[in-house]
C-alpha cells in the first residue's frame, strides 16, 4: 500500500532525472575537462582551468550584469503592468472573456516569431516607429544600433510577451480573495487605494512571490529573444549568460567551458531564487 504511490510516480521521476539531473551531472564532469577544437572535441582533464578562466572572464561577468539588469527591469515592469491588468480583468464587464483571450495572446506566441516582428517594427529607417518619427518631422533613430535603446528594446519585447502570464497568476490570486472582505472595508469608508494596500496586496503576496520566482528564473535564462532580436549586439551590450553559453558550445565548439558557463549560470540563479524566498518569508512574517 505504501509502495503504490511511489510506483505511480516512478516513470515521471525517472524521466525528470534523465532530462534534468543527467545534463547537470554531465556539465559538472565536463567543466573539469578541456573539450574544444584544440583537443579534437575529446575531453582531457585540465585541473579546474575552466573555473579559473571563468573567474577572470570579464565577458562572463559583463553578461551576468546585463542578464541581471534585463531580468530585474523586465520582471519589475511585468509585476506593475501585470497587477494593473489583473485588476482590470478582475472587474466584471461585458466581453471579459474576449478581452482576457486577447490579453493572453502575446504570451501564447513563440518568442522567435515576435522577436522578428520587433526587429521590423524598430527597423531603421523603414519600421513603423521610425515611420512615425519621420512623419512628425524627426530623424530616424537606430533603436537596435544604440546600446541603450537596444537593451530597452529587449525589455519591451519581453514585457510585451510575458506580462499576460504574470497578470494571469495575479488574476488567480484576486479570485481567491473573498469579495465580502472588500465590501466590509468599503463600508468602513476605506478608499480604493487603502483597500489595495491593506487588503489586496497582502493577500496577493504568495501569488506575487510565485510570479516573481517563475519570471526571474525564466528571465535569467533569456536566450531565444536575444538570439533573434539582437544577436547579443551592439557591441555585446545585450548578450545574456545563456546566449554566451550557447556561443561557447555551438559556435566556438568549446564544450568544456560552455558547460562551465552553464553551471555557473545555474548557480547564480539558485542564489537569487534563495535570496528571493528568504525576502518573501520575511515579508510574510511582517504581516499582521
Amino acid at each position: 500500500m505504501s509502495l503504490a504511490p511511489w510506483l505511480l510516480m516512478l516513470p515521471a521521476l525517472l524521466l525528470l532525472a534523465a532530462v534534468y539531473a543527467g545534463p547537470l551531472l554531465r556539465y559538472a564532469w565536463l567543466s573539469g575537462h578541456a573539450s574544444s577544437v584544440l583537443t579534437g572535441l575529446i575531453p582531457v582533464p585540465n585541473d579546474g582551468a575552466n573555473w579559473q578562466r571563468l573567474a577572470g572572464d570579464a565577458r562572463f561577468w559583463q553578461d551576468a550584469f546585463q542578464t541581471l539588469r534585463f531580468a530585474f527591469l523586465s520582471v519589475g515592469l511585468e509585476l506593475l503592468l501585470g497587477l494593473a491588468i489583473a485588476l482590470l480583468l478582475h472587474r466584471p464587464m461585458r466581453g471579459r472573456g474576449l478581452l482576457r483571450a486577447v490579453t493572453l495572446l502575446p504570451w501564447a506566441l513563440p518568442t522567435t516569431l515576435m522577436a522578428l516582428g520587433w526587429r521590423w517594427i524598430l527597423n531603421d529607417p523603414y519600421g513603423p516607429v521610425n515611420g512615425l518619427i519621420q512623419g512628425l518631422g524627426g530623424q530616424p533613430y537606430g533603436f537596435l544600433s544604440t546600446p541603450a535603446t537596444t537593451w530597452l528594446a529587449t525589455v519591451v519585447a519581453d514585457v510585451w510577451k510575458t506580462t499576460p502570464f504574470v497578470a494571469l497568476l495575479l488574476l488567480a490570486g484576486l479570485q481567491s480573495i473573498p469579495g465580502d472582505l472588500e465590501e466590509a472595508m468599503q463600508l468602513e469608508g476605506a478608499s480604493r487605494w487603502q483597500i489595495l494596500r491593506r487588503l489586496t496586496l497582502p493577500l496577493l503576496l504568495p501569488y506575487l512571490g510565485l510570479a516573481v520566482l517563475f519570471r526571474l528564473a525564466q528571465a535569467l535564462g533569456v536566450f531565444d529573444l536575444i538570439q533573434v532580436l539582437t544577436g547579443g549586439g551592439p557591441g555585446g551590450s545585450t548578450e545574456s549568460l545563456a546566449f554566451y553559453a550557447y556561443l561557447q558550445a555551438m559556435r566556438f565548439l568549446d564544450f568544456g567551458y560552455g558547460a562551465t558557463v552553464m553551471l555557473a549560470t545555474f548557480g547564480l540563479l539558485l542564489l537569487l531564487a534563495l535570496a528571493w524566498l528568504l525576502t518573501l518569508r520575511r515579508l510574510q512574517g511582517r504581516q499582521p
Partner: protein
Amino acid sequence: MLGFLIFLLVGLGAVGAPLGLAWQPGQGNAPVAATAAEGPVPVRVLMPAPFVDATASLAARFNASHPGIRIELSRGPLDTEALSDLAVSSLVLGEAPYDVLMMDVSWTPKYAAAGFLEPLEPWLGDHALDPMLPGARAGNAFGGHLWRMPFSGDTALLYWRTDLMDAPPADTEALVRTARSLQKQGKVRWGYVWQGRQYEGLSCVMLEVLHGFGGRWWNPATGRTELDTAAARQATGWLSMLVRSGVTPPAVANFAENEALQLFAAGEAAFLRNWPYAWKLIEQEGGPVAGHVGVSPLPAAPGQAGGATLGTWGFSLPAHSPHPAEAVEVIRWLSGPEAQKELVLSQGYAPTWQSLYDDPDLQRRHPLLAVQRQSLELGALVRPLTPLYAQYSDVLQRQVNGVLSGSRSVELAMAEAQSQSTRVAEAIDPR
C-alpha cells in the same frame, strides 16, 4: 481516458511512420549501404537558400547525366551564422543528414580540427587547386590536408556611381573627399555604406581595413593577434570617423549586406562595399542606379597596398558520410569550370579557375571579370587560419561594433580586442 490517450499515441505513431517521423534508434551510426541497390544514391547538399536557386539547373543537368547519383539540394538559412549553427548541430549529433556541406571559408580550420570533415586529397589528388588563380586557392587547406573545394573566388569590391564621378577613388582619403562633396551638393544622402553589424561581415570589413592601413589581424608565425598596434587603431579609427562625420549612416552598426545594398540600390549612397553578387542584382532589378554602377578593387590608405577579403563558399565532405565517392563526384561537378562558367553568367560569382579568366567568351559576356581578377591578384585576404578563428572574430566584432555604436573608444576597443584574444588563446590551450 487513459486508454484513449494510449490509442491516440499509437495512432500518431502509425500516421507518423510514412512521414519519416517514426522511431529509428541508432540510425546515426549505421551506414545505410543497403539502399544503394534501389535506384540512384541521393547526395544531399546543404547550402544557403540563394545558392539552391542558383545551382538548381546545374543539379538537374548532373542528375540527367549520372543515373547512379541524385543531387538533392537542401535549403539552409541565408544568414551565415545560422547556417553554421545548423551545420554544427547536425555534425555534433553525429548523424549525417547531409552528404556535402557548403562551407564559408572561415570555418575550414575549426571544422577540420573538430574532426567533422574528411580530407579531400585522397579523392581529388594533391594538385587539385593548382589550376586555380593563386588568390582563390587560399583558405581551403589546413594542417597539410585539403578540406574544401571552393565554389567561387569572391572578394569584396567597391561599388561606386558612374553618374556621380568619373573614376573610382584612388585611396581612402579620396573616397571620403568625394563622398563629402557629393553629400554637400545634395546628390546623395550618405557617402559610403558597408557592413557594421556585430556579425561575421564586420570581421570581413575589418580584415581588409586593417590590411589597408598597413596592419594585420593575426600573425601566422606566432599564432597570436596583433590588434593593439598603431595601424590597427588607425584602421578602426577610420571606420569610426566615417560614422562620426556622417559619411556613413549611424545605422551601419546594424547593417549586414542586405541593408547596405538596399540603401545603395535606392540611390541614397555614393559608395558601397559588397560582394560580386550585388552587381548582377542591381542591374537586374532595374532600380534608380541600374546602369550607373562602377565596380573596382577596394581602396587602401594612401601609400598602402589594397586588399580585399576572400569571402568564398566551398564544398566539404562530412566525416562518416555513407557514400563519399558519390559525394565527391558531386563536389567535383559543382566546383568545376563548367558549373562556374554558368554561375558567373547567371549570378556574377567570381570563378576560381584560371582558364575561365582567360576565356574570351566569358570576358566579353561578363564585364566584371577583369575587376574580379584584379582584386584576387592584388591581394585576396584570408581570415586567420586557426581553429580559434570563431573566438577571435567574435571578440573583434564585439569591440569594433561597440566603437561604431558609440559605446567605447577606439583605443580601449583595440586594447580590449587584443587582450581578450590573447586570453582566449591561453585559456583554451589544453597544455
